[in-house]
């Protein structure tokens, strides 16, 4: 963190990031900046590197080149997953991953923003405030009836919702949301868009989605990735009018 | 308490790593008890064997010993093989005041009131063997190869001191220890080969234990080390162990024991015949620890008859001085130090897995509880008759411990 970092006001700044797997460039000199209360939609063909980009930001994958700076100070490429999460970066995975053995409620409780150190966790007590917060979140993701069921019993879509709930519980500064609408009905998709817009009023949100209706609902700047780098950027209408985007992504 | 039978405890592992050696001893005891019962039992009562399985697990030995004595009320226990199993049960025998007959050659350095050692002490096996090699085979260089535990360590300490006292130089002694169950002997055998090719006659004194012997001998055979080049004398390899090896390449290697199945005496022939009948196996072999149990059992029977009771205190007092014929033509005697007198034989391995006796001591050798070669113990004597002490220090005139 002491090395000279590019000065930036962006909350998240990816600078020339490349990721190479056995010679295959999943990300290719990718640069991207996300502002403090900005929502950004990311689109791009399958295999364009969207998930890999999130992997880089959350510390799952180390880039071969480039850096990822958070809040102008933290070089994410040198931190481990837990530190990055503690900095305030939360993530929803492409395929829902929840704690199957825990109840829905416990899944949320574990995700709540709190002291993550070992001993404080050992002595943590349930508080009324915590309970209220959990209730509110369960209400929001419509899993209140399911609260005592183990997460393993949820259907695919319910898990998606639970994971969104877990993400909200962390109250991160930056939310990375990978395909939130997959497996949801049209109504739920619209609902999710509302939710994200609401969150983005105070936080930064990066959404990856292939559902164009959803992206349109979000009404935010869109970045289209292709073969690991930015292909086009701008309002959705502009991007979707781009010949290359139509060619590789939208189809005719 | 008027019991109808006299119970005898048998404490040998029937499973786990030691089962290989100990199972036969359990059978030996069953055989001896059956024979005794055919003769009418003891004190007019039948003997009853109580068999338990301590499963080669040392704490379990203590537990089972306690069970035999406290719960089954046995009059005496015949058992144990490894030193550690004996060490484990010792406190139990002391506490509950019972008798253990221990049939295996061991490192010595012990004499307990409740234990009778019918196997060889180091001076009844190791030292005569070395003498033989030095004299007969003109051996000048020695490899002391053993498994890393107390028996080989102590034996090798004693032998090293003994050899040095005979003028053997340090560079002519090579000592090597291996873990239990060591299976890969390539390096060590080639080291031995190298050590032995200096021009001086070399021999290996092996205190390698149990299972490790088979791969060791196989490797010796394969690397072409013949007994005429570098003889190996072993203290833990008997007929039983050889039964699992192809002995052709081992022709001429040696073992030192107090008994060999091949020894041609009427007593032995009869014993072998009855044993094979008992086992229903005409090929069943006999070995040294079995003979030790035979002697120990007969001594116990005589002592009980002499004391007219199985009460351990009385039997313990009656035992020293009791004599029982061994199977090789002599008469062994229980000494005040609770060890017995035994003849020592050196046998060469024959092609049929038996031993050919090539040398024996003139008479019977008395077992020493304390080795004269070790600094810590040369002043100690054990005498449970006069001094009532297992570790009487002749210098200070005091009985140690307690």
């Amino acid at each position, binding site marked *: 963190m002491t090395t000279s970092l590019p000065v930036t006001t962006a909350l998240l700044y990816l600078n020339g990031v490349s990721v190479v*797997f056995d010679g*295959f460039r999943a990300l290719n000199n990718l640069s991207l900046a996300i502002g403090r209360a900005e929502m950004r939609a990311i689109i*791009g*063909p*399958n*295999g*364009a590197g*969207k*998930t*890999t980009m999130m992997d880089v930001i959350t510390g799952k994958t180390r880039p071969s080149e480039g850096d990822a700076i958070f809040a102008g100070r933290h070089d994410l490429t040198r931190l481990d997953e837990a530190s990055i999460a503690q900095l305030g970066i939360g993530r929803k995975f*492409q*395929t829902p991953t929840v704690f199957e053995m825990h109840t829905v409620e416990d899944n949320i409780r574990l995700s709540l923003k709190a002291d993550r150190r070992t001993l404080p966790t050992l002595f943590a007590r349930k508080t009324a405030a915590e309970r209220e917060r959990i209730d509110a979140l369960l209400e929001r993701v419509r899993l209140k009836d399911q609260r005592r069921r183990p997460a393993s*019993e*949820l*259907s*695919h*879509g*319910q898990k*998606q*919702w639970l994971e969104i709930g877990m993400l909200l519980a962390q109250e991160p500064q930056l939310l990375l949301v990978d*395909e939130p609408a*997959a*497996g*949801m*009905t*049209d*109504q*739920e998709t619209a609902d999710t868009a509302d939710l994200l817009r609401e969150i983005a009023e105070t936080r930064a949100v990066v959404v990856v989605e*292939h*559902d*164009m209706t959803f992206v349109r609902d979000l009404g935010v700047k869109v970045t289209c990735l292709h073969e690991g780098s930015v292909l086009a950027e701008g309002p959705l209408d502009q991007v979707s009018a781009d010949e290359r985007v139509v060619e*590789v*992504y*939208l*189809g*005719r | 308490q008027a019991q109808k039978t006299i119970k005898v405890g048998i404490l040998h592992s029937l499973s786990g790593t030691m089962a290989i050696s100990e199972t036969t001893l359990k059978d030996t005891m069953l055989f001896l008890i059956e024979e005794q019962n055919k003769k009418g039992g003891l004190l007019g009562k039948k003997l009853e064997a109580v068999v338990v399985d301590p499963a080669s697990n040392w704490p379990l030995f203590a537990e089972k010993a306690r069970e035999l004595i406290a719960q089954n009320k046995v009059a005496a226990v015949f058992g144990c093989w490894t030193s550690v199993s004996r060490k484990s049960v010792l406190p139990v025998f002391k506490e509950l005041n019972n008798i253990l007959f221990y049939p295996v050659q061991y490192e010595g350095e012990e004499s307990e009131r409740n234990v009778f050692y019918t196997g060889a002490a180091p001076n009844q096996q190791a030292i005569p063997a070395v003498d033989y090699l030095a004299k007969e085979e003109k051996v000048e260089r020695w490899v002391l190869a053993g498994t890393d535990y107390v028996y080989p360590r102590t034996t090798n300490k004693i032998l090293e001191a003994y050899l040095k006292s005979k003028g053997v130089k340090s560079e002519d002694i090579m000592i090597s220890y291996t873990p239990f169950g060591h299976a890969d002997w390539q390096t060590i055998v080639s080291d031995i080969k190298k050590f032995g090719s200096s021009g001086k006659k070399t021999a290996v004194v092996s205190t390698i234990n149990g299972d490790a012997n088979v791969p060791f001998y196989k490797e010796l055979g394969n690397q072409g080390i013949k007994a005429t080049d570098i003889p190996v004398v072993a203290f833990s390899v008997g007929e039983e162990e050889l039964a699992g090896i192809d002995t052709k390449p081992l022709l001429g290697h040696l073992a030192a024991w107090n008994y060999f199945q091949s020894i041609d005496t009427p007593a032995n022939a009869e014993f072998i015949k009855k044993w094979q009948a008992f086992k229903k196996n005409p090929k069943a072999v006999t070995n040294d620890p079995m003979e030790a149990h035979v002697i120990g059992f007969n001594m116990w029977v005589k002592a009980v008859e002499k004391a007219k009771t199985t009460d351990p205190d009385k039997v313990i007092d009656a035992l020293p001085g009791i004599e029982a014929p061994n199977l090789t033509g002599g008469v062994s005697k229980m000494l005040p130090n609770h060890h017995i007198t035994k003849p020592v034989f050196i046998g060469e391995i024959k092609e049929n897995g038996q031993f050919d006796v090539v040398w024996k001591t003139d008479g019977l050798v008395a077992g020493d509880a304390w080795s004269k070669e070790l600094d810590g113990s040369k002043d100690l004597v054990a005498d449970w008759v006069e001094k009532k002490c297992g570790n009487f220090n002749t210098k200070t005139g005091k009985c140690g411990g307690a």
Partner: protein
Amino acid sequence: MLNVHDISLFYGASQALRGVSLEARVGEVTCVLGRNGVGKSSLMRAIVGHRPIASGVISLDGEDVSALKPYERARRGIGYVPQGREIFPLLTVKENLETGYAPLKRRDRHVPPEVFDIFPVLKSMLHRRGGDLSGGQQQQLAIGRALTTRPRLLVLDEPTEGIQPSIIKDIGRAISYLRDRGDMAIVLVEQYFEFARDLADRFILLERGEVVMAGGPKELEGDAVRDRMAI
């Protein structure tokens, strides 16, 4: 072709399907619609044999297959694209496709060409391990793999999930092509309403494990179904 009659299915004590019936005919696409957690995937699992049913009958060409093991059903011609892709992660793309050879005769053991036509990316990634692919690529692979078994009944559980728009269109075209080829019955679970509407020859709508609506393309035209799906 496939006839599901009045089946019910339990997870432990909780019932996921109550008396569901469904029919799928060769040359038709049968859509299963419904919100999250209503039992669509459970129905598919019952059809392919991954969950036992508690009552009812599932028959294939008139033969009752309800008690058969999954592989026996697969050998009778059921091909399955599960929700969540379930790629064999350590097998290469090629090997993943080749697992579909198991029920085939020796001369059929090759990947049908239409797979690479619809999903050209698979061709370029034949030697990449399945687990390394991106989510959408895996989904494509899962469909390709099911087609390799030359199914007579293709069961697709949300096949468009995570796939880029252009390929969704291709998949749509492929499904119509396969339907029109007339040797295959297709059961499609889909939340993407328009996609389903464009393809469906008949449909059922599930709610809490029960069929609450069924019909043909006409019923889908209006907003009735759509509204029911939106709570």
